[in-house]
């Protein structure tokens, strides 16, 4: 029976911690940190930094389009994770921890660096490898990372305005309407014909 996604993530991290303790230093390579612009609600500073690096490869600056970092995608994803069940936020954090770990990267992606310390080209190759990996858990990780980053990016009007998209404004047409009872219609009285 294949291990669950959660088991894979936890054992993956635990295994690299053991190897690191045994002198294999790749698992301890430092993260390149980024400073969040709002207080973090769900992620650790390290996880946030990995997320920021991922988001900028999912949605890099392109033509008129801003980068994910420019429209605060990492902070938005962190806020969304804080609204989700704690177990989901924790699992997403594990995904980021595993992605960042250089020893895991060596085994799965033949890279010797952390994700945040890798070049954009290497980062793209890692994400492509996850997308089509023979390991279902890695494809799942890609789905989660891409989905949250991409949704947060394209929902921002600073981005979507460049698609010719204009969100309509109905102003006062959408009259603030508290949900309250509508009185039931009075029964009609029908007079019998003489």
């Amino acid at each position, binding site marked *: 029976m294949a291990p669950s996604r959660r088991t894979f993530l936890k054992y993956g991290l635990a295994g690299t911690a053991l190897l690191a303790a045994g002198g294999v230093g790749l698992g301890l390579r430092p993260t390149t940190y980024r400073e969040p612009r709002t207080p973090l609600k769900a992620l650790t500073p390290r996880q946030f930094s990995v997320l920021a690096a991922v988001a900028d490869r999912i949605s890099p600056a392109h033509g008129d389009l801003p980068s994910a970092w420019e429209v605060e995608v990492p902070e938005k994803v962190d806020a969304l994770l804080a609204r989700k069940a704690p177990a989901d936020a924790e699992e997403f954090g594990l995904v980021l921890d595993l992605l960042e770990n250089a020893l895991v990267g060596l085994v799965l992606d033949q890279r010797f660096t952390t994700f945040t310390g890798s070049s954009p080209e290497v980062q793209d190759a890692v994400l492509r490898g996850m997308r089509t990996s023979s390991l279902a858990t890695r494809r799942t990780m890609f789905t989660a990372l891409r*989905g949250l980053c991409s949704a947060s990016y394209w929902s921002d009007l600073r981005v979507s305005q460049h698609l010719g998209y204009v969100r309509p404004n109905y102003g006062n047409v959408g009259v603030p309407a508290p949900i309250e009872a509508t009185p039931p219609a009075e029964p009609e009285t029908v007079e019998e014909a003489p």
Partner: protein
Amino acid sequence: MSGVVTGASITQDVTLVCDVVIVGSGAGGAVLAAGLAARGVDVIVLEAGGAYTSADFDLDEGKAYAAMYQDCGTQSTDDLSIALLQGRSLGGSTTINWTTCYRTPARILAHWQKTHGLDQLTAEVLNPHWDAVEERLHITEWPEAMVNANNETILRGGRKLGWDVHTLKRNVNGCANSGYCGVGCPVNGKQAMHRTYIPDALAHGAGVYADISVERITWSGRRATGVDAVVLDRATNKPTGVKVRVDAKVVVSSAGALHGPALLLRSGLDGEGHVGKRTFIHPVCAVTGEYAHSIKPWSGAPQSAACHEFVDRGPDKIGFFIEAPPMQPMLGATGPKAFGTDMAMFMGQLEHASTLIALAVDGIHPEDPGGTVTLRPDGRPKLHYPTRPLLVEALREAHLRMAELHVAAGATRLTTLHAEPIAMMPDEIGRLADLPYGAHEHTMFSAHLMGGCGLGTVIDQEHRYKGLDNVFVVDGSALPTALGVNPSQTIYGLASRAVESISNAV
């Protein structure tokens, strides 16, 4: 005149007493609450989501999905291979659905009678309920002149091919044709539950509570005694620590597929092992076509046309029907698995893109048991939904047929949502036959969650849970199979019919 009680106003533990407590305020719970309250039954409705109105609907996708969809819009199967869109606010999925309404097809009712023994669910029995629902919700044919360019693809291409295509009925009145049904109607044109049956229930004295998450049904012997619930803080979506207890003569689960079965399972009610089994989702795949003319797939009634040419492919295959989804930027961006420059180029064509979706009709074939809902360690539902060979065959055929439809409608280029994005010219669609299909091979999603507490299996034809005398299930989870049409009106009709038996149980 009373209004909806929100969680913020409940600051200390409270015990409520009523005849019938209904868990959930969507297509099942709202219609049932209004019907029972009109008969003088003392009803309380508990909704886990927030209560929102047009004043809150600012068309911001990022805010709307986080606030009004299950799991902040990220609900999915256990392996994340299929995204599951489901509403979570007052009105349930009706607040954010795309308004498409169909009566249950005759062939489905016949199948239920023959295969599931549901001899009481005939068109003759259900028609009066659907008549009443159609009048209350203003369900009418959407004029073809109002069909947007995205849906017009189906009509134009389908007619050229001689396929069965038609315009749809929608539950709208005063629709602005904005296209934003999925994030809450900004002009109150959609006749969702929070604008219709919930106010009807309130007018007849029902108590309606938002931000209340029911943890379990309490029961002893063959009778339920009520429900235990907690108040949620809408800002954080976490419990405030305040508890709500409802003592009731009758308990109704209207929490929808996935969450309704989970409620029963958390309560120790597994229906002799059947609860959560036979969960169906109309698994969806999609093909996007690029057109020379502007489509603006974010604008205009989101769904107004369909193709039913392949809904019944015979007894040995899974059928599918074809519709078009709205494509506001965020929703559109969730489809492809592309990233970086590829994604920017895909989205750069969005104004000229029409996306078709094929919805597979699961649960009809005898070897298609659908998925299974179980509980996660924290009590939330977990859906395992394998893509079996029968479904894979249907997904392949659906891709081919959607591509044909696009080509007939004049598409200049087609794109699938495969893990490695596939783009092709109209004369290359034969390539589709050789591509892989199924979980993780391409994007899949669903907005039609059905089954898990099926009529005839977990509940009887009066919607009564077979193991207890006073617990009922009235929502999409009651469906014994998928429908081959959008499910909301089937649920409205079943709920209207259930009013009689549940009022008799009080």
